[in-house]
């Protein structure tokens, strides 16, 4: 009999991460359960340049942009906190 509700390792890693991080997050409000998409335009050719850049770190374009944006925002937030 097939196991019902069996998850792949990938799913369980994601779930475990969500669980751990939402616990850490508790003091700061929990992780959002729904998401939204951000998109923006760049000059022709730029996409490829960015893709190659992030591929060097093993990241897809979307992953690389997400990482860069969050890092920048958090650095700024950290500076605001530090000076405030």
């Amino acid at each position, binding site marked *: 009999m097939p196991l019902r509700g069996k998850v792949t390792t990938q799913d369980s*890693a994601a779930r475990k*991460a*969500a669980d751990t991080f939402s616990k850490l*997050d508790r003091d700061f409000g929990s*992780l959002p359960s729904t998401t939204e998409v951000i998109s923006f335009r760049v000059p022709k050719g730029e996409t490829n340049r960015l893709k190659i850049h992030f591929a060097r770190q093993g990241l897809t374009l979307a992953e690389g942009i997400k990482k860069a944006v969050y890092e920048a925002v*958090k650095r700024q937030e*950290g500076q605001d906190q530090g000076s405030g």
Partner: protein
Amino acid sequence: MKTIAFHLQKGGVGKTSLSGAVAYELSRKGRTILIDLDPQGNASSWLLTQTPVYELASVLYGRVGVTKAIVPTATPKLDILATFGLDGELKMFGENQLASEPFIFCDLIEELARAGYDYAIMDLSPGMGRLERCALIAADEAITPMTPEAFSLDGMDIFAAELAKTKKAMRRGPAHRRIIVNAFDGRIDQHKTIMSQAWELQGFEVFTVPVDPCFRKAQADRVAVQSLPKQKAAKPETLAELRRIGEAVCR
């Protein structure tokens, strides 16, 4: 003086590698002391080429003043309070003496500040016993290195729960707002899944140090990661991220 503890109960996640590397970054900004709080003595055997006369436990047992036990490393402005991995007494101190002196590390930190240090970095051992708790309450900040895998996430759960308990019991404790995802390998899907969630973590600054043989090489050669010779040099991303961590910690 600012005191930062590197800790996660899980073993081998990079506490020693990152505390050594971040200590190096901080030594560019001010006088820095690396306190080897792991009875394994890994940080000491990495950054010292000779066994010093005294170790941290000698100070804790009151046999010698703290300034006498401090040893310089090859890096300017970076000193160490060592622990002997072999025949060291830190473990014994933790088991026999610490219960009656739970604030001894707070006193130690105060003395180091008086001695003119700007930064103190504590490299803790895997585990969450009295030694780790007493060290943590002496720190301003705890940084948790983790590898992007399930057991590290378990370690993070335990850390957060234990930190909350310790803060309640001891009425003090470090801030926890920085996480380093270490040995990140973008070719592994699970790493990316975990990373992508970590980036969103509210209230935390998350750093990513790539998988990089430079740590192993630096430890074998007993030099700082940042001072490896060209042919063994760390990846540029590794160096950039270490610098970013150093700058964040100084803010």
